[in-house]
């Protein structure tokens, strides 16, 4: 609690400081808050059939050009009990040869398409189980795959409507294991290739491949390798109906070690896919399906289907979302969860990357 207060004091001082020196050095500031109502009949949740209403995670974002070559960004995540620096990084955006870019700091890693995106931008409210490191345990990390890292990337233009982005990240590696001490031998690695192209001149599409490797147990020297592939396309059905279709498959080649350093293999995979139609400028509706091999037993499959709808009054300033999830775990009864989210944000809305 004391730590949280100190952090809030730090933010207040920081905001006071930038206000005092307002001018070209002023960063863009935006804040996002959300109220989430939830009702589930999942007996494992501890709140089965007891509706909850909570202030969800609040995000405070600051970003600015540091000089003509480098941009910087901070993302603070606040809740009533905790404070977290979710992201803090600087990106060298120009000045390097061969269209090279550099990024250094702590950030949501670009493994696949969903992980680098902040959950408030998900039309289905919460992270799909398969992509949640705390649930499916396929991706490293706790809530997301997020680490201190240095990234080098290059954008290679190949033809007018096709581009290739190749990136490699050297990770501190702590997202792979709970041990917070830094040991250079435990550094992780992430590589990604993203192919972006236009189909028939106006259908933007992307196909990506990701690979990451890190030490899952520093004492036993076990490694986790996760590979993934993802696709996304956007179809303009009419000028007022645009459909986004996205899917991702990930597979983990993991090794676990017990206290006696006896190693067991963890070889599992899973995927999600969703279609989300935006219509009349203010509405969206879609459905997400996911399935994955359960942690602990790859023979068991967990599945979920989640229809969702949303309404935005003015872009991202105020959004109301409703989602219903029907989840079928490999054991126990299927359960239903209804989530209602009221999201509100202030500050400049940055361009959305595809």
């Amino acid at each position, binding site marked *: 609690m004391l730590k949280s207060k100190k952090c809030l004091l730090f933010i207040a001082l920081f905001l006071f400081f930038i206000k005092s020196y307002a001018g070209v050095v002023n960063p863009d500031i935006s804040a996002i808050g959300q109220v989430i109502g939830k009702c589930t009949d999942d007996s494992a949740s501890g709140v089965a059939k007891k509706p909850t209403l909570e202030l969800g995670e609040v995000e405070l974002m600051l970003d600015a050009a540091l000089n003509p070559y480098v*941009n910087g960004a901070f993302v603070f995540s606040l809740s009533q009990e905790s404070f977290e620096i979710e992201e803090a990084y600087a990106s060298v*955006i*120009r*000045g*390097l040869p*061969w*269209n*090279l*870019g550099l990024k250094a700091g702590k950030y949501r890693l670009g493994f696949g398409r969903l992980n680098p995106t902040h959950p408030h931008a998900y039309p289905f409210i919460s992270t799909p189980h398969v992509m949640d490191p705390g649930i499916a345990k396929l991706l490293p990390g706790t809530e997301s795959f997020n680490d201190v890292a240095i990234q080098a990337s290059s*954008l*290679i*233009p*190949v033809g*007018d*409507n*096709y*581009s290739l*982005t190749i990136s490699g990240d050297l990770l501190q590696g702590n997202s792979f294991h709970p041990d917070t001490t830094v040991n250079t031998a435990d550094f992780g690695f992430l590589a990604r290739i*993203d192919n*972006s*192209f*236009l189909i028939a001149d*106006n259908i*933007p599409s*992307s196909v990506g491949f990701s690979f990451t490797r890190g030490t899952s147990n520093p004492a036993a020297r076990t490694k986790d390798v996760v590979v993934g592939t993802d696709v996304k396309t*956007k179809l*303009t059905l009419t*000028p*007022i109906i645009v459909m986004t279709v996205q899917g991702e498959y990930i597979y983990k080649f993991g090794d676990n070690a017990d206290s006696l350093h006896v190693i067991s293999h963890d070889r599992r995979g899973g995927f999600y896919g969703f279609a989300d139609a935006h219509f*009349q*400028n*203010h509405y969206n509706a879609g459905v997400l399906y996911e399935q994955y091999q359960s942690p602990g037993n790859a023979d068991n499959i967990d599945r979920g289907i989640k229809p969702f709808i949303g309404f935005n*009054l*003015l*872009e991202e*300033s105020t959004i109301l979302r409703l989602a219903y999830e029907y989840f079928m775990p490999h054991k126990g009864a299927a359960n239903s969860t209804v989530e209602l989210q009221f999201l509100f944000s*202030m500050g*400049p809305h*940055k*361009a*959305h*990357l*595809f």
Partner: protein
Amino acid sequence: MKAKLKNITIGLIACIIVAFSPVGATVRIVASLPDLGSIASYIGGDKVEVASIAQANANPHSVEVFPSYMAKAARASLFLKCGLALDQWADAIIDGSRNNNLMVIDCSSGINVLEKPTGKVDASKGDVHPFGNPHYWLDPSNGVVIARNILEGLEKVDQPNSAFYTANFEKFKSECGLKILAWKSQINPLTGKKIISYHSSWVYFASAFGLTVSGMVEPFPGIPPSGNHLAVLVDLIKKEHCAFLIQEPYFPGDAPNFLNRQTGIPIVKCSPACADVKPLAYFAHFDAIINQIVKLTGGKQP
């Protein structure tokens, strides 16, 4: 196996060298909007290669940034921005291109900006643009200002062809002047009339042709209309005898259709952006808008 790997490596290196090499002698231009691109094609002629980011029938306020847009900008010499906070997404493309030699031209430079907000500017006024209304290319006389900005950019990146660009600019200016006279003559019977627009895109167009926007379907920019607001508009249209309602294709048709049923007001459906970046597309866009207005309101046929 080793020979195969060697061949693949050589092929990959060759691809990368080709990708980063300057292609031909043409000046590559990327424009936020097709209208800016079309004017650039006119000025640059066969010495330029122009691409546009926003599509003709899509909302230019919100463009999702796609990596291939960055790739286009990575190989370009000029980026034409609309400015006035309409194409804020362009910054992500410009930064993402990592192109050290890319010259960014703000085409709004020198424009007499309308609807500059006064007092505190915040979202309580809707999606208001803090520097004024950014749809300035819809006044054809502003086309000449845009052309001059593009000319200045081309002269900087391709000095040897400066005379060629200047000659094309003069030709554009003269053709635009003649076209404006013809369009004004066509639309003359409607001069002084009041109109309704869906969004605040048509203020420059109305001002150029002697029309007045007396109401908008959106109560505030970006906000969908309520029943009460539509009732107010029905009264306004009847009282002020509004000549037509102009609507972009990417906005829903329910509210305009309701107003049409209630008052009989004709609906002119036009994109604020021209169809493509061909040299004459900018003029053809005005031809199409004015012909549609004239056809629906019984004005003077061309």
